[in-house]
């Protein structure tokens, strides 16, 4: 690991300030991606701004039809939260499938969403639920948030404070995990808002995206078979040792079908 200046601010405002003053700083949330990257000397930030002490970024609130989760809330907390289980059990289910037990004890919602790994789980839910990302300076709608491989709408130094998830009538997440890394080769989050349906897909493309063709089909008829027939362009899908783009498309369809089937159950 290269050397860096380490900061542990006590407020979000202080964190943003420290980050802004650093020549090439970066926020440290759970560190599940950043720390391995640093260890392999693949990144050389001047300053690390550790968000670990910021209680204000932690917590889960259920208010009406909105579930709001602080950016520094750990995956394990989401997976076991009574509020999440009551409001959006699919989200708890998703959080419980991230990485492994130790990763879930450290990794955070904000870290995952800020990083926008193409194979991360949370982006499927952010897109699938049409969440709102609240930062230190604005609100960003899910649909405009994920831009590309490891690229989001966040500006340099912009800090995610919390994410607000609309509570659907019902939702489900199904994931095909990578045999080695346990990231998502394909993950599909289907949310039924009673009349409208959203489908968020992760793992398959450069970043999470909505499968609008399936949304339309399911809005017409909530039929698992729709996942097999809705148009799905896999020309930009990832292709690697674990799965060709063609196989990924198959997995997206199967995970989508199973998610829709789970809605009925």
């Amino acid at each position, binding site marked *: 690991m290269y050397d860096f200046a*380490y900061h*542990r601010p006590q407020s979000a405002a202080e964190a943003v300030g420290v980050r802004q003053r650093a020549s090439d700083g970066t926020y440290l949330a759970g560190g599940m991606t950043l720390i*391995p990257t640093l260890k392999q000397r693949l990144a050389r930030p001047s300053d690390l701004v550790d968000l670990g002490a910021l209680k204000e970024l932690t917590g889960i609130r259920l208010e009406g039809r909105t579930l709001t989760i602080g950016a520094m809330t750990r995956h394990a907390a989401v997976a076991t939260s009574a509020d999440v289980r009551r409001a959006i059990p699919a989200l708890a289910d998703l959080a419980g499938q991230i990485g492994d*037990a130790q990763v879930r004890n450290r990794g955070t919602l904000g870290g995952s969403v800020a990083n926008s790994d193409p194979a991360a789980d949370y982006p499927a839910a952010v897109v699938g639920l049409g969440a709102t990302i609240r930062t230190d300076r604005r609100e960003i709608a899910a649909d405009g948030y994920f831009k590309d491989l490891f690229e989001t709408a966040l500006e340099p130094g912009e800090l995610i404070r919390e994410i607000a998830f609309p509570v659907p009538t019902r939702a489900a997440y199904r994931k095909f995990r990578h045999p080695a890394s346990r990231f998502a080769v394909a993950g599909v989050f289907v949310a039924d808002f009673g009349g409208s349906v959203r489908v968020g897909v992760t793992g398959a493309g450069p970043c999470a995206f909505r499968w609008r063709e399936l949304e339309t089909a399911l809005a017409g008829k909530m039929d698992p078979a729709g996942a097999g027939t809705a148009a799905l362009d896999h020309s930009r899908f990832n292709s690697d040792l674990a799965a060709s783009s063609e196989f990924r498309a198959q997995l997206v369809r199967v995970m989508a079908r199973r998610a829709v089937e789970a809605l009925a159950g």
Partner: protein
Amino acid sequence: MKVSMVVNGVPRELETRSNALLVDLLRHDLRLTGVHVGCDTSQCGACTVRMNGAAVKSCTVLAGQAEGAEVTTIEGLGQPGALHPLQAAFQETHGLQCGFCTPGMIMTALDLLESGERLDEARVRAGLDGNFCRCTGYHNIVRAVLLAAGANA
């Protein structure tokens, strides 16, 4: 920089580098060599310790992130002659061979035991999927955890 933490019940104040990892502090500064390092991508789990009551991979925690934390390593569990039931179960079921993954495996399993969940084979296997073992095929590790849980092993 300085970090303070409580390790195996003993308050510690350590002078360290900003880029030191928790595992470095434990292994090198405190000579708690029961904490092992088996990979550099946060997969194998050999370095697992408990931090504030939750299993974490100490190779993926910066020293500064452990500020104020309570850390328990394998050395803070039972001792020879006064083993923790989980340690005893690992010996009883032959849940270890080379022993290298064992401390991390035990620390993760401790989380499972204390979760209050009803444990069966499938739950134990899922719960241990962040810890690699190359020797045992996991068969006897699963039996060890179930034995310690009082379930049918």
